[in-house]
């Protein structure tokens, strides 16, 4: 069993060094395929309902692009730092991994804080879950993404803490790799949210 | 095994016999007895597709039967059958032939499909707005300025353009003998045209699960000569122009009082009253009570005494009327007619 070598020299690409690791990586890619359908369905629903404001606030009246731009910047930067963590993983440098992941988590928390602020602000402006079909679709799509970010933050913190005890092994390496993959996926989804929800939301009313 | 095969034959004979006995269903109801161009086009497609499919089935069954008889393992049979990998010629054959059969089906599918989706303006077709409710049907003729419920009245030999929607949940509008069918979606409008080529009564159904009394959400289509239809429209309009029918007997007068007090809030008569329940302007002319029961005073009385018993989940409350009130109400309602026959 490859486990025997845990304390010996770590192989290259440690995340795929064992069959378990390979299985996890493949399984996670497939899981992300399912997640794509999940978000695809949410996007389709949102696009169908985005102009149904039901007399409540519309996206044009509501969206604050400055705030969204900052949030986008934070999340995209965190995507880059998570790549740095994966690169460090391939160099088998646990300290660097921890450093880059810490930055990733901080940026993610910043994003989440902005999103929560944004939601609270919208609710105060009169856009509640039950206001209109648009509001339901907006909170659901963006909220689903936000929940993914929150879960990702908790997951990465958990991995970081347990790695301080366990070190970098063929068991922990795939976990770091997957967390980074997951974080990328969340960023890609955000790019679509930024485009479909916010950018199209600013001009939507004039077209539709 | 042998015994079972005999039973099987008896069973299938029984089943076949039963179907022959039942025939193709009632003229008024069956999609197998088309009474208009839409149903006829659909029936033609059914016949074409089932003929092709039965042809395929016969081929499959012929090979199937032959194989099962010819290649069953015989006692004492030795040796190992030849392990055949496949046969490209055969495999191409049974890919191409089904494909060709599908093309034969596809052509009328496309042409009929587009023919059925045509929309006819009011110059060419009677326009009818259908609104489905739990568990009854509202029919409005916007160009003629009349409205009715439960009994759809149509002229023979003329296209009818329907615009359909629902007020509460999704229903589906289906008149099997004239052609079918389209959903009535809450919050959206659908369109469909039909035409009846023979006068008479046809049965309509709700085909989408819509609640407890989905099974009982029937309606009737009364198809009449154009002249009779015009008379009917005139009658409906005439009633609407004047005051609601004046009671013809003391009992009916008493009934009218109850009606005006307890029923008019939900049911319209001659342009007056609410729209929560079916319009009752020509109630006495209707083919059925509540869409399902024979039109008799007893059935009307039963309905009035306990509407939930007959159509569970419908919106009409029990008015808690005593027998005399019910009797008076029935007497009055039986005068709500626009037909000269009654």
């Amino acid at each position, binding site marked *: 069993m490859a486990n025997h070598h845990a304390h010996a020299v770590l192989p290259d690409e440690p995340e795929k060094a064992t069959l378990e690791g390979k299985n996890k990586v493949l399984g996670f890619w497939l899981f992300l395929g*399912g997640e794509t359908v999940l978000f695809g369905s949410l996007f389709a*629903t949102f696009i169908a309902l985005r102009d149904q404001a039901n007399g409540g606030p519309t996206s044009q009246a509501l969206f604050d692009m400055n705030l969204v731009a900052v949030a986008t910047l934070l999340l995209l930067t965190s995507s880059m730092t998570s790549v740095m963590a994966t690169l460090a993983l391939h160099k088998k440098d646990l300290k660097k991994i921890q450093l880059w992941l810490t930055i990733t988590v901080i940026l993610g928390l910043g994003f989440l804080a902005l999103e929560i602020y944004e939601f609270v602000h919208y609710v105060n402006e009169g856009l509640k879950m039950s206001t209109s079909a648009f509001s*339901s679709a907006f909170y659901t799509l963006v909220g689903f993404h936000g929940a993914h970010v929150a879960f990702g933050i908790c997951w990465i913190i958990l991995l970081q803490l347990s790695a301080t005890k366990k070190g970098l092994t063929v068991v922990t390496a795939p976990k770091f790799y997957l967390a980074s993959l997951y974080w990328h996926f969340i960023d890609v989804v955000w790019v679509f949210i930024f485009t479909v929800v916010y950018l199209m939301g600013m001009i939507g009313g004039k077209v539709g | 095994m042998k015994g079972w095969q005999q039973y099987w034959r008896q069973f299938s004979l029984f089943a076949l016999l039963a179907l022959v006995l039942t025939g193709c269903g009632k003229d008024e109801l069956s999609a197998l007895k088309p009474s208009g161009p839409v149903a006829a086009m659909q029936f033609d497609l059914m016949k074409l597709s089932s003929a092709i499919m039965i042809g395929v089935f016969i081929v499959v069954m012929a090979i*199937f039967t032959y194989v099962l008889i010819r*290649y069953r393992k015989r006692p004492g049979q030795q040796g190992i059958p030849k392990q055949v990998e*496949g046969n490209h010629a055969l495999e191409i054959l049974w890919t191409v032939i089904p494909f060709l059969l599908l093309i034969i089906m596809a052509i009328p599918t496309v042409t009929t499909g587009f023919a059925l989706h045509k929309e006819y303006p009011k110059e060419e077709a009677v326009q009818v707005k259908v609104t489905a409710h739990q568990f009854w049907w509202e029919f409005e003729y916007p160009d003629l300025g009349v409205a009715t419920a439960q009994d759809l009245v149509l002229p023979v030999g003329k296209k009818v353009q329907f615009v359909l929607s629902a007020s509460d949940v999704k229903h589906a509008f289906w008149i099997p003998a004239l052609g079918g069918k389209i959903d009535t979606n809450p919050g959206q409008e659908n369109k469909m045209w039909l035409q009846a080529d023979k006068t008479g009564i046809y049965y309509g*159904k709700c085909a989408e*699960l819509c609640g*407890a009394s989905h099974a009982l959400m029937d309606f009737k289509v009364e198809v009449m000569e154009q002249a009779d239809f015009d008379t009917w429209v005139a009658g409906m309009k005439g009633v609407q122009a004047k005051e609601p029918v004046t009671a013809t007997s003391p009992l009916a007068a008493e009934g009218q009082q109850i009606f005006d007090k307890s029923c008019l809030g939900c049911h319209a008569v001659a342009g007056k009253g609410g729209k929560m329940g079916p319009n009752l302007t020509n109630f006495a002319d209707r083919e059925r009570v509540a869409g399902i029961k024979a039109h008799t005073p007893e059935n009307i009385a039963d309905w009035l005494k306990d509407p939930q018993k007959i159509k569970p989940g419908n919106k009409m409350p029990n008015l808690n009327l005593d027998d005399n009130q019910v009797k008076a109400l029935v007497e009055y309602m039986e005068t709500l007619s626009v037909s000269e026959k009654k």
Partner: protein
Amino acid sequence: MSAHASHAPNRSGLWDYLTTVDHKKIAILYLIAGGIFFLAGGLEALLIRLQLMYPEIEFVGAKTFNELITMHGTTMIFLAVMPIIFALMNAIVPLQIGARDVAFPFVNALGFWLFFFGGVLLNTSWFLGGAPDAGWTSYTTLALNQYSGRGVDFYVLGLQIAGLGTLIGGINFLVTIINMRAPGMTFMRMPMFTWASFITSGLILFAFPAITVGLVLLMFDRLFGGNFFNPDAGGNVVIWEHLFWIFGHPEVYILILPAFGIISEVVSTFSRKRLFGYSSMVFATALIGFLGFMVWAHHMFTTGLGAIANTLFGLATMLIAVPTGIKIFNWLLTMWGGQIRFPTANLFAVGFIPTFTIGGMTGVMLAVPPADYQYHDSYFVVAHFHYVIVGGLVFGLFSGLYYWWPKMFGKMLNETIGKWNFWTFFIGFHLTFFPQHFLGLMGMPRRVFTYLKDQNLDMGNFISTIGAFGMTIGTILFVINVFVAAKSSKRAPADPWDGRSLEWAIPSPPPEYNFVQTPLVRGLDALWVEKMAGNKGMTPAEPIGDIHMPSPSFLPFLMSLGLFVAGYGFIYHNYVVVVIGILATLACMFTRSVKDDPGYHIHEDELEEKGVKA
């Protein structure tokens, strides 16, 4: 990492099954749970048919009837046939590819318990104020609060939990089949059942998220004041239909493809011939899977999507007839020239062919949109999909169960009872559903709790109900057969049917580790190849050595229990309970992530002595 438990933890009885991560035991769990739900769904079906035996009768009444049809459909699809498919996949796929276990044994157990608790949650609705009554399709707005009771909340939550289990089960099988094949087991040497399981798992992966989103949106509408499907606030009822059928149509192929796989195995074995046109079978299966995602709107021809959409979806649907036809002819040609034996397994497989052909034929007829306007939502459709799902899938499952029972349990099912089982079920099936085609065309809509006396629908309905008794007797005979087999002291041999694939190379039931030595696969029909070469068994691909096994775990059970509890919290708007349930699940996930599973080793001296006791 360094510490290995060298012996299997000593567990037995119920505790063993509550904590097992062994794919063979999980298979048995799936079979038992799926079997019980199948009986429940069957009972519901019988009550439906009794209510419809005569016109205008009061037996269960309108409201209960709607609950029965909803629960019958939902139970049969999600809680009965899918788990039984998963039972066979779990029991057989790892054996057919020469693997010691699935890729994610822990996730495998979690998938089962999620399905189980989701199913139990859904069914408790019967005792907690009424089952869901908006149809298994739960079309909105009927499924919104205004028009239906709390039952639909059970539907929404139960299916989300069960669906999650199915989704991770699908991922597990994809990875298992891609990564865990024995040396020499190339993709084009995999048995058809494994191929079918592979493609079915792929369909699960891409179809289930769509229904999950649909259910979440419906839950938001029902519980949190969302407006997705509420037209009064700008919502759109058709979105639900799209989401449901984007899942729902692939679901049909998720169900039927494994049956195709089973029939391919059984027909080939009992004809003593290799599968005719293996490559075209693989190609056809993949093509059906692919096209399955392109045709969902044929369930919505009457929704009002317009002529162009209807025509395109109709034509795409017709295309599926081509690969399906290829399969039927390949089965026939597999039997051609063979030495066909007719044990019960093959009776069901042979009975499947004409029955499924009829289901396929009516399927093509339904693909013609203008004609479908007449068939849609009538009993014609009810007849069609029961020909496909019962005449296709359930026949296939019975065939697979009779075929693989000895492998799963080490006991043979009784052939005499089996034959009675087949004939009663087969005849009962055709009596029940054949007349329904005509009932539909004669104007009987589906999901009606009664019909009027004067509409010529009496005879067909009566015959249909009589047929339902036949199917009931057939099902009871199967249950009896299970008990007879369990009581019997005769052990099943390793290879009772003169099998062709790897599962028949190892004892019945297989030991915990399946293969003492991973086999070397040298061709399609791996075992048959060795038999023809005059070898006694498979050639090993590795020396005998210690075998590493994953540890059993109670966490999958607890994680699922947490979501089960949270489900009730949602249904009864008690958010303290929701938080407790979800925290319990998260705590289990935390434990799983932090605490590594060292597993244990079975020492080479112990090999062959241990075996799975069923």
